[in-house]
């Protein structure tokens, strides 16, 4: 097969979007990444994603080969290992990449520094082009909650935590006391509504 070209993606719609990016690694990429991943297992904050309320899920895998299931599968022995990154997010893709380059540039550099052709973290345009060039569009996707952004979900979960207390208070308090409790709820959770 001649060298395939990853389809150029037009970056997807703003809510519930995903990127699958596959990058070939330098010879030192596998031990380097294993060390990085070990570090984030010990210190999860090193992932740096917690601060962004726009990522649902993300995963990184190192692929060094393919299981051979038998003919007619061709035995492939890639010379280069690959880093497969998938991220599911809710945001416009351009600002999403920009905010990550601004907020966690060190993390991004550590994770993709060993990927061939990595343009570095100084230019949003170069990084966006790199992601677009090496991403694969999905042919099918399913979301259990297609229209809910990460922010909506996190807010909903916060509101849920207080709902039982509010319900109980409503059933046991008088109007004046409940109005005070409800005002406190709005002060704490107003931003989540």
């Amino acid at each position: 097969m001649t060298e395939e070209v990853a389809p150029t993606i037009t970056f997807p719609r703003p809510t519930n979007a995903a990127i699958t990016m596959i990058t070939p690694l330098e010879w030192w990429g596998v031990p380097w990444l294993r060390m990085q991943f070990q570090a984030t297992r010990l210190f999860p904050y090193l992932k740096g994603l917690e601060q962004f309320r726009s990522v649902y899920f993300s995963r990184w895998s190192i692929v060094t080969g393919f299981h051979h299931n038998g003919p007619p599968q061709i035995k492939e022995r890639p010379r280069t290992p690959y880093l497969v990154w998938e991220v599911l997010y809710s945001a416009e893709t351009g600002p999403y990449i920009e905010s990550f380059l601004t907020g966690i540039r060190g993390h991004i550099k550590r994770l993709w520094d060993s990927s061939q052709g990595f343009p570095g973290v100084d230019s949003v345009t170069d990084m966006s082009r790199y992601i677009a060039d090496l991403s694969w569009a999905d042919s099918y996707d399913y979301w259990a909650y297609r229209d809910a952004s990460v922010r909506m979900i996190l807010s909903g979960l916060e509101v849920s935590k207080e709902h039982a207390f509010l319900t109980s208070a409503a059933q046991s308090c008088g109007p004046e006391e409940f109005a005070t409790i409800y005002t406190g709820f709005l002060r704490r959770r107003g931003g989540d509504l």
Partner: protein
Amino acid sequence: MTAGWPPTPVAVLTPVLPGREVDLVGHLGDMREEPSPFAALESTHVARLVVIGQVRTIAGMKKVKRPLRMRYLLFTAVANSPADVFLEELRSTSGPAVDEVWNHCVRYPGHRDETRFHEYMRQNSVDAQQTFRAYDATVSEVRTALALRRRHLSFARKAQALPSSEIHEAFLKHFGLSAGGD
């Protein structure tokens, strides 16, 4: 679904039968118009099917000495189950739809042979070396939380126009409650 199990990533990478790549992409496109086989699985937050091949060579990359010659179907999902439990749920709940997808892949045994199905999926699975999840909730908990947030939002709008003495009664009515917990 495994109670209390956090959202867990699953990934399976299977070789597409030579010559069937276009048919597979066409089938996956058609699936978008039909009820999703994943909708029947309560544990599934998200599922994706991506057909991949040799990575494009761009500036700064080395010349590819042994380019990939096959296309592969990358299946990823996030579910509130261990991978094997999720795949069994998928097999037993949506077996025929699963066959229609993976019949395009080399040596897929079909969903009726439970042992070989799981062996195939396990042998072709891709481990995640690092993961991130924004929340630990189940799909059901997420949906409930979203609905509850909507109800609270509509009540908060309503409550803005009420004197504080009427908020209590309006809250009880809005959420279908009665004073005293009856």
